[in-house]
């Protein structure tokens, strides 16, 4: 086995483990965090394992678990939607369907014409109160991110030769299923599709953190989760108070650690799917 292939295998295993950990954290999340306990206020990691408590004496790992529960499935759904659109664009470019290709590009231009956060805020404005969960926002983000992914996948397929590549393989006697599924998608478009999916999944997690942080900063309920649950933004908000002098360094460490875990997971997926 070549070192490069070994590295890809290791990256895939590590990414899968990290993502599995994220999903398990979400499944293990308590429905409600513990009640405030004034005897445990601001305890560090060693005083109150595993990660200490906040300024109300609530163990901060409960925020981490609830935050994972908020982002896990929506990030996965958003990644899959983006990957599906990228796959479609790649196949259309190879399928000798110029009008469909043009229509997809025009639609992509229109969808990607506005700043994404502006669209997200308008969508959030329209959401009924009962729908204040991350999934609709994540789906919207995936649809907004899809044009860029489609463009890149279509360009990769175009560089491959497009319809001429399919024609050449057909001349060699390969079936359409094998050409599209194996030669085009698996051998050529896989790095682009997986990278775009991983990036959009990561962006959804960061989007949730950003929206929840903005809501926390404005002392309003978040658009992305019910008021009874807490996002990873809570840890960063507490970490911010540490910068200003409060004794909540461990919240900052855990918050940044979770951000790093998310970014690391996305990068490992990207590495695992990189081209041979």
């Amino acid at each position, binding site marked *: 086995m070549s070192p490069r292939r070994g590295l890809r295998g290791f990256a895939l295993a590590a990414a899968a483990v990290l993502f599995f950990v994220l999903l398990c954290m979400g499944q293990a999340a308590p429905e409600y965090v513990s009640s405030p306990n004034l005897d445990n206020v601001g305890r560090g990691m060693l005083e109150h394992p595993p990660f200490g408590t906040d300024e109300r004496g609530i163990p901060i790992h409960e925020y981490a678990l609830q935050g994972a529960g908020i982002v896990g499935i929506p990030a996965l759904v958003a990644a899959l939607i983006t990957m599906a659109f990228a796959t479609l664009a790649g196949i259309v470019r190879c399928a000798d369907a110029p009008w469909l290709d043009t229509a997809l590009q025009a639609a992509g*231009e229109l969808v990607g014409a506005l700043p994404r956060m502006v669209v997200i*805020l308008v969508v959030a404005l329209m959401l009924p109160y009962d729908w204040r969960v991350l999934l609709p926002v994540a789906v919207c983000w995936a649809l907004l991110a899809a044009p860029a992914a489609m463009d890149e996948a279509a360009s990769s397929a175009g560089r491959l030769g497009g319809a001429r590549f399919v024609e050449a393989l057909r001349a060699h006697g390969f079936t359409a299923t094998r050409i599209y599924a194996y030669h085009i998608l698996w051998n050529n478009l896989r790095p682009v599709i997986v990278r775009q999916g991983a990036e959009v999944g990561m962006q959804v997690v960061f989007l949730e953190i*950003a929206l929840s942080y903005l809501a926390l900063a404005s002392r309003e309920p978040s658009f992305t989760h019910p008021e009874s649950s807490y996002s990873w933004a809570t840890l960063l908000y507490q970490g911010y108070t540490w910068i200003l002098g409060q004794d909540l360094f461990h919240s900052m460490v855990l918050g940044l650690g979770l951000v790093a875990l998310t970014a690391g997971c996305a990068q490992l997926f990207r590495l695992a799917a990189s081209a041979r």
Partner: protein
Amino acid sequence: MTWWMRPLVRLVAAVLLPLVVPAIITGALWALPGDPANIICPPETCDGTAALAARWNLDQGPLHFYLDWMSKAVTLDMGRSWTLMAGSPVYDEMVRSVPNTALLVLWATIPLFLGTLDAALGLLPRRVDLLWQAIGLLPAVILALLVAAYVEITFGAFGGDEALRWKLLLGGLVLGLADGALAGAVTGTRTTFEEEVKQRYVQIAMLRGESVFANAMPNVLPALIGQMRGRLLHVLSGAVVVEVVVGIPGLGELLWAGTLKQDFGVVLAATFAFSAFSGALMLFQGLSEIAVAWYVHRSPAGVVEAR
């Protein structure tokens, strides 16, 4: 696809964008459960909803509301705030906020422009890319949080104009670096040039001792302008986060506050401004593509004078 199809789609979309976005919001406002006037004046807490609906132009259906709002918007009358600053003209608030957002975007554009230029000229070594990529992994909210803390520690919670200047400068830097903005600018530009240099006409130009940059530039310019437009949209998107976290009274912060308070008056005006700016960017890209096509058509040889 014929060469004029893409610019044409862009030009049409650029014109339609500021018209369509308020139309969609107006349609959604009427699609929401209940009467739109109930948002300003919930029947359980105030009476006279019908009178208010007539005053706010909400009593004659979405088409009348939209046409009236648009006809005023083209004369820069953006209507009045519904709930955020109830009754105040939104235009006044926009006059205060747009310059801050413009400055923020301008500061953010500087590292992006320099990165693009250096990558195009081959001045940035490839091994430094890892640094941009590592910084780019950080989400804007994290870096904005550090900026907010720095400004608060340095200037206090209610810092004056000096604090605002630092917020704009550092906020712009955050937007230029975070979420892969600079990394994308550098690697995107370099990849575009590297792909173009593989083309036969550039190889021949190199053999003739001509400038690679000058030969390739007209052909990669539409792609680079498209990438720059994407990055500016990305910066505008991030500006909402940075403005709220850092505390910059800009258009993004206004939109966020309007969204939180369900103030459709503010949201309509802010999204109209964002869509007008996005439309202007798209118009610029479309016109640039036409100009480049015209230039290339005038120079069919595709080569320039030797240095």
